[in-house]
């Protein structure tokens, strides 16, 4: 699924056949009936005080793509409470709803019930092809009541993680003078949609290409609910001939070296082993840098072969080199679920989980929790908590629970300063989720709760009174701090032990 961090030169510039003939400049009016504004009201959560929520608002761009269907990126649509759409860049807002959303593909379809809304709208043409090197495109959006049409120059195709997910798929990069794009604005060429933007940094705009969009939408239309799959193994380039010689590869240097194959939580046997050489995937030769030549996009990193018309549960044929000889294997793509990571990178459409006992606040360790340390959270959040992100979930350690803070009260006196400790055991029972914590708290030891943390240099154990004293303290603390519920658990239990 991921390339090794040591090797960073794997995302290559596509060198597609150059057919960069200048497209006709499209008059803005050509898109007026297809491009919409979307307003999203959503709940935003404070992971430091997970019982709090506030209202948030986001503006996006959508495109009419079919019978009463609006295409948008999935970003900012999670935890939404009200979605409205507006045509012509001004005037009346119409209530809409999210009909389908795929956070890993970063795509969503919206619709509106009001028939009148659709009367003068026209679906955009999604049959665009990948642009060639240096091709000129336009980014279109409504701005201050006018349709803005900005030039953009195609720079490259890359394979990177989807915005807000860890799924790799092909993406397009553009260079443009536009400001504040990345909210689903259509990128158009030759009266067709070439993609939709999902981020902008400086002049570089990143775009989901239309062929990927088509592929995902067609799968959705055909009832495929399995979602995108991914390669759950790590590899490194095979540029060192001595390494290939050590692995007894015969012939020209080629392929990539498998270095780590994490345990699969579904219990299925690992297909690959460390020190296998992957030579071919689905018939495509893999070169020493880990690229294959995509018929549509040119050289791309092999991760794209896990999402190129493939879905979770699909089989991928691989030719590998193992123990000095070639071998054909079938790799079944696992499905991606945020909850399957030891430290989930996102939590969607649910409030943060927490459990308060005697003023001690326990939470699952998640990336949104770490992000509360601000823009520089990867540097400023507690190192040990951050470093768990590099660990894989396993059957015995599918997730982590932390003591995130202590709400001060006479009941927990002496513990007020404690925070950011990872829970190991509670009352002698191993705890990896709030559900397990809840169960362990039902079995106090001699009228006490004994909470053991993962060994560290500060504190390894806390003891609380159990029973009525704890219940009264918890109620008192909830009341004093204005918290409605002592427990909020909406995540599913991750893995069976």
């Amino acid at each position, binding site marked *: 699924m991921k390339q090794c961090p040591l090797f960073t030169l794997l995302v290559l510039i596509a060198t597609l056949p150059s057919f960069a003939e200048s497209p006709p400049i499209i008059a803005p009016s050509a898109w007026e009936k297809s491009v919409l504004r979307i307003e999203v009201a959503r709940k935003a959560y404070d992971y430091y005080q997970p019982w709090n929520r506030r209202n948030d608002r986001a503006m996006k761009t959508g495109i009419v793509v079919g019978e009463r269907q609006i295409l948008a990126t999935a970003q900012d649509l999670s935890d939404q409470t009200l979605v409205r759409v507006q045509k012509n860049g001004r005037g009346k807002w119409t209530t809409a709803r999210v009909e389908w959303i795929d956070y890993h593909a970063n795509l969503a379809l919206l619709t509106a019930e009001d028939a009148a809304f659709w009367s003068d709208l026209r679906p955009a043409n999604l049959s665009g092809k990948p642009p060639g090197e240096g091709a000129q495109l336009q980014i279109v959006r409504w701005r201050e009541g006018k349709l803005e049409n900005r030039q953009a120059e195609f720079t490259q195709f890359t394979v990177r993680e989807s915005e807000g997910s860890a799924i790799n798929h092909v993406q397009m990069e553009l260079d443009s003078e536009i400001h504040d794009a990345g909210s689903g604005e259509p990128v158009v060429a030759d009266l067709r949609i070439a993609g939709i933007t999902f981020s902008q940094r400086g002049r570089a705009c990143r775009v989901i290409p239309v062929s990927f969009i088509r592929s995902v939408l067609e799968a959705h239309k055909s009832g495929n609910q399995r979602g995108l799959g991914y390669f759950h193994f790590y590899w490194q380039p095979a540029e060192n001939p001595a390494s290939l010689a050590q692995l007894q590869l015969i012939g020209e240097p080629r392929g990539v070296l498998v270095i780590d194959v994490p345990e699969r939580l579904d219990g299925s046997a690992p297909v690959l082993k460390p020190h296998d050489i992957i030579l071919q995937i689905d018939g495509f030769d893999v070169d020493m840098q880990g690229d294959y030549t995509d018929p549509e996009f040119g050289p791309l990193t092999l991760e794209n072969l896990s999402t190129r018309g493939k879905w979770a549960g699909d089989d991928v044929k691989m030719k590998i080199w193992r123990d000095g000889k070639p071998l054909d294997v079938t790799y079944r793509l696992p499905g991606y679920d945020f909850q399957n990571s030891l430290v989930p990178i996102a939590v969607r459409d649910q409030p943060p989980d927490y459990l308060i006992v005697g003023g001690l606040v326990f939470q699952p360790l998640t990336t949104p929790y770490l992000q509360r340390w601000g823009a520089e959270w*990867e540097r400023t959040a507690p190192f040990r908590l951050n*470093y768990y992100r*590099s660990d894989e979930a396993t059957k015995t350690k599918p997730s982590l629970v932390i003591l995130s803070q202590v709400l001060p009260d006479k009941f927990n006196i002496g513990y007020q300063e404690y925070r950011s400790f990872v829970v190991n055991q509670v009352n002698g029972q191993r705890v990896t989720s709030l559900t397990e914590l809840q169960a362990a708290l039902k079995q106090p030891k001699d009228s006490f709760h004994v909470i053991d943390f993962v*060994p560290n240099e500060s504190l*390894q*154990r806390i003891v*609380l009174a159990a029973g009525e004293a704890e219940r009264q303290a918890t109620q008192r603390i909830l009341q004093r701090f204005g918290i409605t519920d002592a427990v909020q658990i909406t995540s599913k239990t991750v893995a069976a032990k």
Partner: protein
Amino acid sequence: MFLKTVSVCAVFFATALCFAIEPERSVIQIQTYRQSPDWSAPWRFDAVQRSGGSGFVIRGKRIMTNAHVVSWARQIILRKYQDAKPHIAQVEFVAHDCDLAILTVEDESFFDGLPALEFGELPPVRSTAVTYGYPAGGEEISYTRGVVSRIELSPYSHIGNRRLLTVQTDAVINPGNSGGPVIQDDRVVGVAFQGIPGLEGAGFFIPPPVIQRFLKDIEDKRYDGVPLAGAGITPLQNPAYRARLKLPNNNLGARVDRVRSRTGATNVLRADDVLLKIGEFPVASDGTVLYQGNRVFCALGFQLGQSGDSVPVQLWRDGHAQDAQVTVEAETDDQREGNQYDVQPRYFVFGGLVFTSLSRDYMRDSGREGAETAAGEFNYELFFRSREEPEMTREEPVVLSSVLSDPVNANFSTRGRVLVDRINGIRIEKIADVICAFTTSTNTHDMIEFGKRGTFECLDHAEAVRANDKILKTYGISQDRHL
């Protein structure tokens, strides 16, 4: 825990108007020409740098100063009060853990007319003391008066991983005054040693209990180090926890949270013991003892004696009090977690691959102190693994520091700064294992595996052996190893 905010610098107090004696005659200006190693290219040293400090004459024709004033010294030059003549000095003893050093001067006439300063007691808070020294900004001696504002255990930034008794004053801090005496009633009550950047009006000095312990330690001509408890001690104020341990709720006793392996406490203390008394000091529930009128963390009770001493303790265990003896020892297992001085880093070069020990110094020098992947692995290996996975702890974690370019390694994807996991299938516990793996290898190719993800590179063994001398010569490395 890794980035101490306290930085070493000099303390310098304003003018002392008059004294019965003239301590300034015994205050020495120290100029050090130092050269510290490049931890990433450990056969190499950085350019020579000059730095200034202070010291003072003590009994036995010796000069006391800070360890950080003379660490990595190539040459130490002393100048007496109002005397232009330079004198060469040598380090007789250096104690990096408590930041003290003793210098001697070959020419004993240096001490003619210089009275040895005598040591006093720990000064009381709110009293005033004067620091003498040669801070930056001028050539003449300088005096600053400050109020003793706080006495507690604080981090000693020179070593980086010790908390010892410290006195805080409201004096201004200036570089160059380190090692100067702090004088009260004609006696030395401290050695100025550090300040906190950005915190004006706070200077720190090393108090007499630490100095006297150091002087006693070196009486046998060897410095052993400040002994430590060998256990993590935490406050015990929660009534439920005290009740579970059947301990009276009387504000006495701190809890043993964890016990370090291979220390004098290992077989004496255990988690959830409660320390009621350490030596003569009753321990309060907040983990402090009352020491000469100051509430300080109880670990002090283990730090006052010498390594190997037996410290009597009163414990609360299994519902009743009992007596025990803890043998306190100066720990050396954690030296890589702190800053290291005066010892050239260990390394081994083979086929252009530079292997060295993972240490706090290496991480700082190689810019690997952040949270990105390599730094994360280094951080975890150095500071967390021994606590979380003691059975997997390596004696001397080894990093591939750099790859000196040569055709034999030109195709390596990594250029270094990675943790070495295995070589030819053997887990690398220390640099000696690296040397053994390569020198005893009969493989055509040597396989080196890195980090937690298992990236690896192979090296043609025969070609690497052939290339070795040429690589060493090309890069100006006189020896392929330093152990």
